[in-house]
């Protein structure tokens, strides 16, 4: 170190001294950029690390309210924390049973781009108003842009109440 300083300070190496200063300036600039840049990136992408929410059993409603043979709309209010805000949110599900024993619970979220589908009773189809996506009674795509059938939830029945596994 001392040798280096002596060498840099010596009269003969005026030019080298300029190079040293230049390197120092660029080095410090680089350090500041990295020291600020890495926390900045972590800061911006931070929500990705908090997005994972634990799955819980959500009570949808009484089994007796499900009409046999036609998807029945159930609305459920849940508490959701986003950032520092705790909101009450309303989720909608379509519950279908053909025999009163086996139940299918369908998400009302269109698999195309996330608009909400609704059951059109006289056509016996789910319809999405955003891009004319059409699904049949059990959620399979009939026509339009949706790439996948409507999402199905894991179902359980306890004391004649319907529960689904969701987040």
């Amino acid at each position, binding site marked *: 170190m001392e040798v280096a300083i002596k060498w840099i300070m010596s009269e003969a190496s005026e030019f080298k001294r300029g190079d040293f200063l230049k390197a120092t300036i660029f080095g410090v600039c680089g350090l500041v950029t990295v020291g*600020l840049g890495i*926390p*900045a990136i*972590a*800061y*911006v*992408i*931070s929500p990705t*690390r*908090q997005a994972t929410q634990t799955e819980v059993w959500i009570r949808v409603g009484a089994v007796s309210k499900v009409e046999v043979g036609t998807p029945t709309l159930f609305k459920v209010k849940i508490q959701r924390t986003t*950032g*520092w*805000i705790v909101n009450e949110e309303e989720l909608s599900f379509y519950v279908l049973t053909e025999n009163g024993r086996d139940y299918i619970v369908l998400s009302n979220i269109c698999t195309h781009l996330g608009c909400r589908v609704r059951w059109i009773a006289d056509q016996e189809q789910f319809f999405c108003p955003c891009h004319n996506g059409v699904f049949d009674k059990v959620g399979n795509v009939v026509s339009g842009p949706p790439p996948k059938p409507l999402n199905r939830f894991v179902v359980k029945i306890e004391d004649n109440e319907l529960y689904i596994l969701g987040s």
Partner: protein
Amino acid sequence: MSTRVGNWLDERIGWRGIWQTIFLRKIPKVNWSFTLGSASLFVASIQVFTGILLTLYYVPTPDHAYDSVQYITTQIAGGWFIRGIHHWGASAMVVLVFLHMLRVIFYGAYKFPREVTWLTGVVLLIVVIGFGFTGYLLPWDQKAFWATTVGTRIAGTPPLIGDWILIVVRGSEELSAITLARFYGVHVWVLPTALIILILIHLYLVIRLGISAIPSREE
């Protein structure tokens, strides 16, 4: 390789001339106090950078301001760091521009032909103080609330027009959502715009006129 890229670019955009004008200009023999302006500029850039990041999460309403700041500080990765730099940078800014001003006064560097540089510097000092005053309210905690209550009340002390000024500054009779919104708007739009324009003029003049030498005894 880098020289070739440099030459290629220089032929097309002429960056070497600009680089030379800004960084390789001739200066008289000076001391470390002549770096205070550059130091202020450096901290100002840091403030702009961290300030922009803070707006990604901060919400300027009475319902959310405090909670969003707490969220940044405790929940967001590096949030404490970004906010901490912005917080301490604000103080550093005021100290640096003040020392910069003292240096210019003591060396008489405000004299002909640099009067306009000095004038823009005076306005820049006011802008920096404005940043400090408006930024202080944004965390919306007890300290912020009462400091701004007092600060705006001082603005309302002139006779006759005092009450009118008070309402212009607060946007309402008492501190409210309107006060917070306009302090935020001034802090992130009005003052940064003024700061950038004034810095450009200030630097243009510094480069055009060159910096003043330290006065010698014979003069």
